[in-house]
């Protein structure tokens, strides 16, 4: 009996292992906060700041989430252009992870707020949304 069991066990285990590996790589989420945690944080922090108070920050980075074509027509001095569709790109990771205050600006408030939520859930700190 033993001889027939070994291949069977190997088949079952390998099918299972295959499933595990597939799902492991398919959707591993980098979101660090749960839905309830982000709700709490979003409620308790006041992340929206007025245009006039921009000067209160020391060496802020102004991040403009609009598409490049709008950015090129007109943008604020020293602003960095990171289109919303590219904010998860690796090249910006260092920027978001740095300690400097990061001020987010977008075409409309909805997009800026969403970007704040997403970046906060990824564990980045010192993010603010500029009120238009």
């Amino acid at each position, binding site marked *: 009996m033993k001889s027939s069991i070994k291949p069977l066990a190997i088949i*079952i285990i390998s099918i299972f292992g295959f499933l*595990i590996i597939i*799902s492991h790589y398919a*959707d591993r989420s980098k979101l660090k906060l749960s839905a309830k945690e982000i709700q709490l944080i979003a409620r308790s922090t006041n992340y929206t700041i007025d245009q006039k108070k921009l000067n209160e920050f020391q060496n802020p980075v102004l991040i403009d989430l609009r598409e490049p074509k709008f950015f090129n027509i007109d943008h604020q001095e020293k602003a960095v252009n990171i289109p919303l569709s590219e904010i998860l790109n690796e090249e910006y990771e260092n920027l978001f992870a740095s300690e400097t205050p990061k001020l987010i600006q977008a075409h409309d408030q909805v997009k800026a707020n969403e970007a704040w939520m997403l970046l906060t859930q990824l564990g980045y700190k010192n993010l603010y949304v500029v009120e238009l």
Partner: protein
Amino acid sequence: MGPVIPVYEISQELNFLIAFIIGIGFGFALEQAGFSSSRKLAGMFYGYDTTVLKVFFTAAIVAMIGLVFLNYFEMIDMGIVYVNEYYINSAIIGGVIMGVGFIVGGFCPGTSVCAAAIGKIDAMAYLGGSLIGIFLFGETYSWWEKVYNINYLGGIKLSTALGISDGLMVFLVIAAAVLMFWVGEWAEKKFKRPDISKEL
């Protein structure tokens, strides 16, 4: 992320096909373990054969550990996995009746299906009997309805009830099971019945 079928909303037909395949695995494992023999099953209560104890607890432990690890590696959403709902009275009364049924009939529904598949006539009788039992319950349901539905605690976990983590609970269950395996093997020697064991 698992569980695959509810999360990815897989079609009914594929769901049933998977049910069938899982059932084949279930039946195969039960039969190979010897659960198709009523005297082997009953042996557990007289100590001469503790296969049931070993298989039952090994299976539960493997699944338990597997679920803890799957959960840890974020491969399964334990919020979706079904946790049996606990109605204090009905679980205990039902369990007691099932216990008597187990020792009288020598099977439980799953093993009787498996035994009937290999031609055990007593298992077929048992299957017929359980249909009668379910019918009786259905017909007299109005008598039990109140007892059946009181003291509802919801899908509560033992670890939650004791206030410890799932992992620690799994460890405690394993420790208890290892102890039981040891007792089981000791009992098999003490209450040895070579005449029965040879027949099975």
